[in-house]
Structure formats: C-alpha cells, structure tokens
C-alpha cells in the first residue's frame, strides 16, 4: 500500500511539473506562468453580469483626484461604452 501511494505521489508530481512547463511555454516564461496562476487565474470566473443585467453603478474619481461622479451620470440618454483598463 505504501508503494502504491508513492507511485501516486510520483505521478502527481510529474504531472504538476509537466503542467507548469506547458504553462510556462504558453505564458512565455516560468515567471509569467507563476504570475498567471497567482494574479490572473483568480479573476477568470469573477463577475455575474450578463447581457440584460442592470448595469451596476459605482462612484468614480475624476482625474483631478478630488471630484467624484457616478457611472450612471455619464449616460446622457444614450448608450455608454465603458472601458476598463490600467497603464501596465
């Protein structure tokens, strides 16, 4: 029985290393593979919004760092294209 579990652990280990190697290749480097798992993976299934859902409102800070406005305030009776992103 002990031998069986050693095999299971060995196979699992080999599969884990192989999976990380493949991910590293896809991501470009082991560091990027780690980044993908550490930072991107947790976000992949977030969000429950669907087409037809009520658009949530949120308070946004203006570029002056002082003024505030709400997303809803930016819909002037027309559709609103909302683009999220960062610099990096």
């Amino acid at each position, binding site marked *: 029985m002990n031998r069986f579990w050693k095999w299971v652990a060995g196979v699992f280990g080999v599969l884990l290393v192989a999976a990380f190697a493949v991910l590293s290749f896809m991501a470009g480097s082991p560091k990027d593979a780690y980044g993908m798992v550490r930072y991107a993976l947790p976000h992949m299934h977030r969000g429950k919004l669907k087409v037809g859902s009520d658009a949530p409102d949120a308070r946004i800070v203006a570029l002056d760092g002082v003024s505030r406005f709400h997303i809803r305030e930016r*819909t002037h009776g027309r559709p609103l294209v909302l683009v999220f992103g960062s610099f990096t």
Partner: protein
Amino acid sequence: MGDVVQIYEDYKDHVDFLTVYVREAHPTDEWQMKSNVKDDVCYAQPKTLEQRVAIANDFTRRFKFPLPFGIDDMGNAANDAYAAWPERIYIIDESGHIAYRGGMGPFNYKPEEAREWLAARYGAVKHEASASPPSGAPTSTAAPAAAPAAK
C-alpha cells in the same frame, strides 16, 4: 487601446464613452512583464488614491488619451462590480442594462466586438486600408498576449 480610440472617434456622436482606470495589471511589485520595462511603463501597485491618480494622469498625458476618463477608488468598487481587471469593455444601453459584455483581457479583450455592436446600431464606419488607428492608447501588456490597458 488604439482600437478603442478609433471606435471613440467613429461613434462619439452617437454614444457616450467612459474609461475607468482600475488597479494595475503588471506593477513592478507584482507581475511585471518584460514589455513594461521595454515600454518604460514601470509603476508599483498604487497604495493610495493619490498614487493611482498620478499614474492615471501620466497615462492620459503620455498618450493624449481623448476618451472621458475616471479612476476607480481604492475600494475597487467599479472593478468588483464589473469584474473589470485587467481590462474589459461593456456597453450599457439607454435603459441602464448591459447590452454588451466583453471578455476578460488580454485574451478575450476584443474591441472589435464592441465596434460590431455599434455598427449594427449606427452603421459601420469604413476606414482606408492604409489608415492606421491612432496609437498610443493604453494597451494592457497583460501577460502572454497583450489595458488607460490595462493591460
């Protein structure tokens, strides 16, 4: 985001636009990419609103980003509500409902889908083949592929 700038230029008379800067995708103290160094876009993850505002202003100045712009607060309310990180596009219709929900960037960040929605409603805008879309818009260097970009 060069594509987004072109879409803005093409449809700004029909719809409103808002870009929201959310937490960095590839800051120096997290998951920095080689492309960030190459493009000289190296920032640590902002810990204060002042830092976030400063980076957002760097971005809009550097790229002369024309879209209306806002910044998610440090509670990340907009990011959480829209699952926005690292980059994503939505279209909200006149009734306040989601009309288009883009995928998570960078792999599923597809401005052309938003363009298709707009084209279906307001008509397609043709461009000369030689015309290149404005560059310098925020593009996420987000990982393996490619947002404000985000990355």
